[in-house]
């Protein structure tokens, strides 16, 4: 037997309009911790779901313990010895620890009655092996997140898992809890379990893993031994093309102030946020996920209500606007989630484009269909959107083309300020640079632009000025030569360090 428990061979998975996995191969050895890294949308979660039987790959195969294997679902995977531990835990809060460990695979007698004693005994054994400080009868809902995670890990013991996949396991853990988790992972490793470790946190990757496989745009960029590499190389592999991408920055010719926000607060989300943006200016808003960036702009736009603070539009206090008022003043928000917030997926491009401006496309409440069609055609060619016609449901389009319709629906009413929240997330490289060019073009035409992005090169590449946000507060502002990756990282991480201390 060679020293590989599980091998992925040439897996390809295509979703409408996007190749999520492109001929991906990698392997897991017993007793190793293997990191899977990549940016959002690189294909990590798709790969993981393929391993756990949630997605059926279009081609390629999974070789498990030396034999090609088809995994039909999470329970099947678990019974075969492959365990997926999700970022969002899959536990039932009202059930006991023991019942959760064996969720869906409870031992029963031939009448279908739960064998409680056996369940408890086996669960206790698994919990003891992990050194958990709680018993099998506790209701899971009363446990802390870290303890709940232990319940999931106990499944690895209970089902004698050979492969355990961790997806962002430390996302909501404290430092002490993280140390405990790593202790547990090392224990699993010592017993010969193969572990896949998915995380964005590089320090953890270098702390606990033996090998690192980097994914980008659905392709494996390479697998390296952790001991032989460094952060720089891994980052380069992850970002790849993006590093070389040429960003067009709009000419720095600014006009009047369009929007000013003063000490805007919403308890639990952000505090005392102040900034302003002028005509022709691109303002970048950088921060990690959860820093409160989207919440701030959604509040400015009126989808959320602030607790305090002031918003000025062209110098005038506009109190707290509704989305309708914001749109009518000339504000546009391209939201973070295209599918949930940006588009009505079952509608076509025509109806999506006119949706925010029904009064502009109607007379006496009767829709002016020729005008709608003309606008649709105008933006279809201006943004080169690939669609079969005005009424093709946008759900059938690729991410990039969908995003262009979100842009079209705002641009068609000539906004004065456009806010773009993660405008290039999850779209192909070609559409990305088209959107970067569009941002520069809009600013040069005199629009005020706010760009939110968690991709540092993007936010630095397109903006004239960048605000760094962390934990609901603006922690720094950079302009000109001070706009560097180091400064942004410093600002964001320094603040986090302070807050933790």
């Amino acid at each position, binding site marked *: 037997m060679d020293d590989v428990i599980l091998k992925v061979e040439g897996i390809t998975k295509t979703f409408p309009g996007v190749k999520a996995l492109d001929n991906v191969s990698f392997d897991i050895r017993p007793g190793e911790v293997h990191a899977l890294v990549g940016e959002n949308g690189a294909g990590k979660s798709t790969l993981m779901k393929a391993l756990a039987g949630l997605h059926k790959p279009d081609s390629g195969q999974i070789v498990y313990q030396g034999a090609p294997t088809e995994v039909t679902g999470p329970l099947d995977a678990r019974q075969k010895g492959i365990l997926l531990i999700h970022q969002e835990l899959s536990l039932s809060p009202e059930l006991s620890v023991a019942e959760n460990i064996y969720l869906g695979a409870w031992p029963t007698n031939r009448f279908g009655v739960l064998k409680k004693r056996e369940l408890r005994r086996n669960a206790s054994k698994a919990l003891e092996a992990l050194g958990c400080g709680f018993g099998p009868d506790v209701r899971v809902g009363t446990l802390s997140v870290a303890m709940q995670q232990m319940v999931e890990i106990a499944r690895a013991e209970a089902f004698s898992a050979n492969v355990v996949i961790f997806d962002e396991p430390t996302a909501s853990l404290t430092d002490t809890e993280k140390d405990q988790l790593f202790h547990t992972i090392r224990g699993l490793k010592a017993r010969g379990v193969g572990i896949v470790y998915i995380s964005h946190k590089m320090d953890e990757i270098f702390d606990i893993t033996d090998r690192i496989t980097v994914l980008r745009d659905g392709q494996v960029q390479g697998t390296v031994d952790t001991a032989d590499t460094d952060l720089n190389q891994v980052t380069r592999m992850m970002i790849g093309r993006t590093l070389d991408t040429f960003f067009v920055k709009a000419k720095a010719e600014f006009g009047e102030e369009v929007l000013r926000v003063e000490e805007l607060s919403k308890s639990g989300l952000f505090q005392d946020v102040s900034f302003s943006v002028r005509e022709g200016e691109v303002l970048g808003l950088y921060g990690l996920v959860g820093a409160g960036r989207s919440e701030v702009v959604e509040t400015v736009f009126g989808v959320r209500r602030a607790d305090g603070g002031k918003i000025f539009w062209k110098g005038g206090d506009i109190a707290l606007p509704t*989305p*309708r008022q914001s*749109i009518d003043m000339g504000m546009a928000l391209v939201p973070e989630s295209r599918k949930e917030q940006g588009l009505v*997926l079952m509608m076509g491009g025509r*109806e999506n484009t006119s*949706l925010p401006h029904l*009064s502009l496309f109607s007379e006496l409440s009767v*829709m002016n269909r020729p005008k709608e069609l003309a606008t649709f055609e105008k933006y279809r060619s201006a943004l080169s959107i690939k669609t079969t016609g005005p009424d093709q449901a946008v759900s059938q389009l690729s991410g990039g083309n969908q995003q262009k319709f979100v842009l079209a629906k705002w641009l068609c009413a000539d906004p004065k300020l456009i806010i773009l929240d993660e405008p290039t997330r999850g779209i192909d490289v070609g559409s990305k640079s088209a959107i970067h060019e569009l941002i520069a073009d809009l600013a040069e035409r005199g629009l005020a632009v706010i760009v939110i992005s968690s991709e540092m090169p993007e936010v630095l590449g397109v903006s004239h000025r960048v605000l760094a946000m962390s934990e609901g507060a603006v922690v720094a502002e950079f302009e000109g030569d001070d706009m560097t990756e180091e400064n942004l990282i410093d600002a964001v991480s320094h603040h986090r360090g302070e807050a933790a201390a």
Partner: protein
Amino acid sequence: MGQTINGVLRRHGLILAFLVFLGGVALNADAFLTPGNILDVLRQVSITGMMALGVTFVVLTGRLDLSVGSLLTLLTVIVVDQHNIAGPFPAIVMTLLVGVAVGAFNGLLVGFVGLNALIVTLAMLSFLQGLVLFYSGGSNVNVANAQETWFGVFGRGDFLGLPVPVILFLVGAVIAGLVLQFTTFGRRVYGVGGNETASIFSGIDARWTVFWTYVVSGFTTGVAAVIMGSRVMGAQNTIGQGYELTVLAGVILGGTSLLGGSGSIWRTVIGISMLGFIQNGLLLLGFPYYVQWLVTWAVIIIAVWIDLGAKRGRIFA
């Protein structure tokens, strides 16, 4: 090619089954496809159909209106009783106003307070049934001067060879269809039903949109009550019992999705008419009248199942 089979089933399966059923009934009951019987079915359908027009608006936003059965009872009792007291014209106006008011109250609770539509309208169904008995004191009401009043025209009249209620239903359907397809209100209804969050991000006030769909539903039930009162020239305390589900069955049988955002008025016209012919056919085949309750059950389950299958891309989960 599960997708194709599913597509064919969704688009044509029900119609096919319906045509087979029609043929079967026609072979076994000579009266079925006679003009007289067809007009009878359409007369019956015009009442449920009128209600279904308004309920379609509500369902398109992804919500429900189960209060329309009791509302029909209440409004029919009102229109007949007020006819005897105030005369036909004030009675009709009052009926429509009460219908609109009840719809507005539902709309307030669902749209603005944000309560669950199923619970709100189910509770309203119960409340209105109680209110009927308070109003009528438990006795049935009849139009006193049935031979003299012009009130009978809505339910019993003919115009150019067509029953007036059928004409009212078709005119109502055309208006409702135009509103949904060609006005900003129609667009907002589809937007809120298709993706409420995205609609709010597009500056649409989902609360008002939902509110108005319930008002429309209350209004069309008011018109249905006028037809009903005129047709029967009286009202029993249970006259609208079960109509809420018949109406809903017609709407979803036509293919309007309970999840909102997809469907149309013409689909409702087809669905509610199919339901009318199925029930009439079963009667002619000698089934007792109460078989319609079983049919309503089967239609709702099958239609919802197919809708779910289409959303998931397959029929069997």
